[in-house]
Each structure stands twice: as structure tokens, then as C-alpha cells.
């Protein structure tokens, strides 16, 4: 495994989004994984509709919360095509599911995987490199005040409450860390990103890992 790996270096990660007061981090992280996975397959990197997932993933609760895995299940089982974000823009509130004609451009998935990798973060590195950015659910209570640096303390596992995207890692320094994309805008953290210490399941980062198959 390389000492450092970051899908952003290959221009395969879209820009940081802002979920505002809508509690749909689960939809943001899943759309992020689909955007990257589609681009990794050689297609253009483009922003897809988070609002479509919020409105249409019927097993979830829109801006009142949801699960990354049930969103992936909905995408796969319904074979829904995620349209461009410009076609179905983010409104920061749950709305009625809008359907599009079959001729409308969209991205669907061929499957999905979900892993529990606590104690196996070396395996998680491998999955990240082989499959693309990973949607994870973490305990982010202590992230409210985060400005930068590597989170190593005050972030326990066992109370997963926020979905984000792991895009890379860096083990070249004294403290190895995961590079994690959030959906709270670029004025939070390191231009919208957070670094989390690797190897000890800080924030429960390896507890609930999921990604689509394209």
C-alpha cells in the first residue's frame, strides 16, 4: 500500500457541498460516492442530485435523517438514475419525489457493498484504493468546534450519527490519518475536510463502511 493516497489528486472527487440546516448527510455522502465511482470508471466527474436522493429514497427520512446503506439499497433495487444536480437542485428541505423520462441522463449503480472494518483499517485502506471513496458513519459530536489538525481524542465510537466520505489517507508522518470530506461547507474544518487518526477506530470511522459498484 502506498504511504499516501488521495482520490483528489486524480481529480476524482467533487467539490465540498453544504447541507445547511437539512439533516441529509447520508444522502450527501452516498451521492459523493456515486460521483467519484462514476468518474473512476472513466466518465466525466460531475455533480449529481442530492435532492433526488432526499426526496425519493423512501426508506429514509429526507432532511430528518437517514442511512447510507438504505440509500444504496434504494438506488440499486429501484435502478433509479441519479440526474445532474443542475436538473434537480438542492432545496434544503424534503420534497416530493420527481420522476424523469427514461431519456434523461442519469447514473445508476450495479450493486453495493457494506463492511464493518473496525480493527481492520489496513483492509479499509485496500478497499479505498481498489473501489473508490467510501461512505462512512461516524460519531461527529465533537466536530462542532473543529478547525484543523488530526482528531485523536474526544471522539469515541459507538454513537454513529453523521455520514461523511473517506477520500484518502496519509501515513507518511508521525500520526497516520484518514482524509475525510464533510458536507458542512468550506468554511468548516480544513476547507470542508477533516483529518482523523488511523488505526484505532477514532470516531467509529471503520464501523459502517459502504460504497456503490458501478
Amino acid at each position: 500500500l502506498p504511504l499516501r493516497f488521495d482520490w483528489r489528486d486524480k481529480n476524482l472527487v467533487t467539490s465540498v457541498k453544504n447541507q445547511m440546516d437539512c439533516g441529509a448527510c447520508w444522502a450527501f455522502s452516498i451521492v459523493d460516492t456515486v460521483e467519484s465511482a462514476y468518474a473512476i470508471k472513466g466518465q466525466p466527474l460531475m455533480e449529481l442530485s442530492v435532492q433526488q436522493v432526499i426526496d425519493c429514497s423512501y426508506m429514509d427520512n429526507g432532511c430528518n435523517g437517514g442511512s447510507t446503506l438504505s440509500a444504496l439499497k434504494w438506488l440499486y433495487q429501484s435502478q433509479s438514475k441519479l440526474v445532474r444536480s443542475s436538473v434537480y437542485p438542492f432545496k434544503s428541505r424534503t420534497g416530493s419525489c420527481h420522476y424523469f423520462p427514461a431519456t434523461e441522463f442519469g447514473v445508476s449503480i450495479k450493486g453495493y457493498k457494506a463492511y464493518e472494518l473496525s480493527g481492520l483499517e489496513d483492509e479499509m485502506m485496500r478497499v479505498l484504493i481498489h473501489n473508490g471513496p467510501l461512505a462512512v458513519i461516524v460519531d461527529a459530536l465533537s466536530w462542532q468546534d473543529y478547525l484543523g489538525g488530526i482528531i485523536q481524542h474526544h471522539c469515541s465510537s459507538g454513537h454513529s450519527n453523521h455520514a461523511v466520505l473517506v477520500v484518502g489517507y496519509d501515513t507518511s508522518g508521525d500520526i497516520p490519518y484518514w482524509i475525510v470530506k464533510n458536507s458542512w461547507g468550506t468554511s468548516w474544518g480544513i476547507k470542508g475536510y477533516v483529518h482523523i487518526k488511523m488505526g484505532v477506530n477514532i470516531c467509529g470511522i471503520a464501523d459502517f463502511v459502504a460504497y456503490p459498484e458501478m
Partner: protein
Amino acid sequence: SFQEIFGSKYPAPRRLLEERYKVFLESVERHKYLNGFRQSAGDAFYGINPFSDLSAEEFSHIHLKSYPAMKDDYIVPNKTTSRENA
């Protein structure tokens, strides 16, 4: 300055503004506490950001709304095999 930088807007009544300011001051105290645990330059640091006018309860209620599916839905790889491979 916080309102200018982060674009926060509050309703007109002064009482509400004062309540927000009180929450903001509590956040500043929390930053001092968290930064007290820093041991090296690389450690995480905490301070004023877009959420500093929210209490921890409000922050959790608004922004932490995801939950995992059933534990059984997640595959646990064989740890022995994985370690042997490593």
C-alpha cells in the same frame, strides 16, 4: 464579527440576540477546554466556526441525523485471513 463572517442572521428582538451571544460564549469556553488536551502541533484544534452560535444539543439535533442500518447488514471480513494477508 461572527455574524458578518458566517452570515448568521437573527430575528430582531434583542432578547434572542442575547441568548445567542450567551451560547456563543459557552462555545468559546468549550474551545478552551478542548484545546487544553493538545499535545503536539499536529493535534486537532478547536475554535470559532459556523456552528459556534449553536449549543451542543442544537448542533446534534440539526446536523447529526444519520444512523447505521442493522449491524447484520454489514459484512465483517475474516480478521485472521486479513492479518495473514497483511
